[in-house]
């Protein structure tokens, strides 16, 4: 029987346990805990989920079931500059798909992936409510409005090292 050893940096582990404690180690608060944990680690690797399961007195399978249910949670690290393309209807009818294709083409990644150098990750999100600016692209927290496929290159260059 192989047992799974959890490896975490002691400082981060302490912070993670503090997060769980902040929510009274209540498994009903799992989603709030996951939000904070993802904020701390940038993503939710299996080790983090195992610790959370242990702290909240629930099963790792349950935590994993929840993590994989919600699109906001991710088990892969995001790029330094996470790029999100709004796929709300307003953006879609104003050409978001073509913009997305251009990002995919230039970055050579699929949706949900990160470039090998860790610079950019590509994702789609639901309406961000800036429909007046459609199509909209977010890089980190910055919103780019009325993005045309030929403007994609400039956006990437702005962030490239």
């Amino acid at each position, binding site marked *: *029987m*192989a*047992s*799974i*050893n*959890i*490896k*975490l*940096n*002691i400082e981060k*582990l302490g912070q993670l346990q503090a997060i769980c404690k902040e929510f009274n180690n209540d498994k009903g608060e799992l989603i709030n805990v996951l939000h904070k944990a993802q904020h701390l680690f940038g993503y939710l690797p*299996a080790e983090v*989920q*195992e*610790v959370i*399961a*242990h702290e909240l007195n*629930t*099963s*790792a*399978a*349950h*935590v*994993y*079931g929840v993590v*994989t*249910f919600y699109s906001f949670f991710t088990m892969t690290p995001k790029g330094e500059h996470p790029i999100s393309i709004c796929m709300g209807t307003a953006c879609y009818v104003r050409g978001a798909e073509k913009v997305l294709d251009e990002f995919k083409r230039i970055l050579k990644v699929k949706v949900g992936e990160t470039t090998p150098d860790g610079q950019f990750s590509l994702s789609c999100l639901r309406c961000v409510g800036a429909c007046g600016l459609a199509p909209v692209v977010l890089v980190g927290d910055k919103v780019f409005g009325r993005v045309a496929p030929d403007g994609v290159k400039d956006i990437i260059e702005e962030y490239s090292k």
Partner: protein
Amino acid sequence: MEMIKVTIDNKVIEVEKGTTILDAAHTVGINIPTLCYLHLHDLNITNKPAGCRVCVVEVKGRRNLAPACVTECTPGMEVSTHNIRVLNSRKTVLELILSDHPTDCLICPKSGSCDLQSLAQEMGIRQIRYEGEQSTYREDTSPAIIRDVDKCIMCRRCEMMCNDVQTVGVLSAVNRGFMAVVAPAFERNLDHSECTYCGQCVAVCPTGALTEVDHTNNVIRTLADPSKTVIVQTAPAVRAALGEEFGMEAGTLVTGKMAAALRRLGFDYVFDTDFAADLTIMEEGTELLDRITRHLKGDTTVKLPILTSCCPGWVSFFEHQFPDMLDIPSTARSPQQMFGSIAKTYFAEKLGIKRENMVVVSIMPCLAKKYECSRNEFKVDGNPDVDFAVSTRELAHLIKQANINFLELPDEDFDRPLGDSTGAAVIFGATGGVIEAATRTAYEVFTGKKLDKVDFEQLRGMEWIRRAEVDFDGFPIKIGIAHGLGNARKLLEEIRDGKADFHAIEIMACPGGCIGGGGQPLHHGDSSILKARTAALYREDAGKAIRKSHENPFIQKLYEDFLGKPCGHKSHHLLHTHYFDKSNPVEIE
């Protein structure tokens, strides 16, 4: 109870308020098909996520169709269970499920006992109009259970069993939408999880998604090897269920036919795990009395209650979930392992053969036994005490493959010396049986008096957790019984919190005990089958000449010739074990 009138397929019926359409229809002989629904009445186990949508019916005035399994009847409700709209929807939904399901039925281990397959036949599905991409996942093989996840239909029965009944928490629905499936954490393999291999997920899986690791071919090959002496042992619960695989009524005892069949299969010696169950009582009973006596003498280091340790699912459970309590259970090995150990020492010596040339096969109602016999502590120089554990279902396959007409077989006896047992041993297969057997012996040893009546009715039944007191001649022995690991958890937590004052507790992982084990013929949600098997075991006990383990003359002889005394040096070496902390420690980098 308030009664209400409803109309189902033009029949006006009166039902209790709160009755579901499914149950109401059933009372007038209308059997609405179901798939994800599971209800074991006597055990109060229910799974109705209303996810498969096969049981939909039309309720007049309702916009969409209603799932009969969860929709309660309301006064004046008019239900149609098979009009064209309902039938078309039901068939379309079924086609959809089949469109995301492999169609390798001919070679599927579940073929013939698959609920999905039967339903497709009943509904006359002859084509799948909506073919498309199928969701595919990695197959997972563990020591006992195979997960062929492509065949999962998200009925969630296994998830319910693993979480709500067993509280093991290995399985959960993961992902969402088309890729949603039931899986262990991080979609790892079962052998990287806290799985106890109790097999209750397999027992309820309607398709071939969860099946046992099949050892029938290993057995066939071994039997054909002239250099091997092949010995078989059969667990108590098998004889009460095997007949079902041959169309016999649930609860038919087939002890004699089973022995005959095993002999015809070519086993050199047909023995009985019941013999080892009597041996278990000698060891575990002695340990119990020792702990009680020391306790009464004021020894504060003694751990009470003592917990039974016959059930490998239960052993895994406390190793994973209660690593702080490893010193409470009895150290006695399970009957399967005691048998293997004695067979490959005592009996091998008697035959004058080397242990490498002896193969022990066990027929078990259980899947955890497959895992148990693979544990390293039950091996000597890499040679396992028990080589193969095959389930009741696998035995039926072996019998069929050997062209044996099971129904026509004469009743035969087990071989000696490891085939003779008492009534106390046969009830090991039902919840409460082990502790009743132990009580029969412990009482007589403790009090020095003969029992007038060996039946302890207060220890029997299907209630999840039972508490009883047995008067040991003025000293009340407090006994706890739990079946189903979720209930075991409750008792363990009571002990941990210091709230329990039991002397002895019996725990069996499976609902109903071994008769409801993960290797038994499938009950398909009919809990009366489990009750019938239990009754059969008590019937066999009642019919036995000897009903107390310590009176088994072959057991007495074993101690005289070989073991010495119960819990003595040799027994300790051969019949006892130790437990491991299998919790996941958080390792700091």
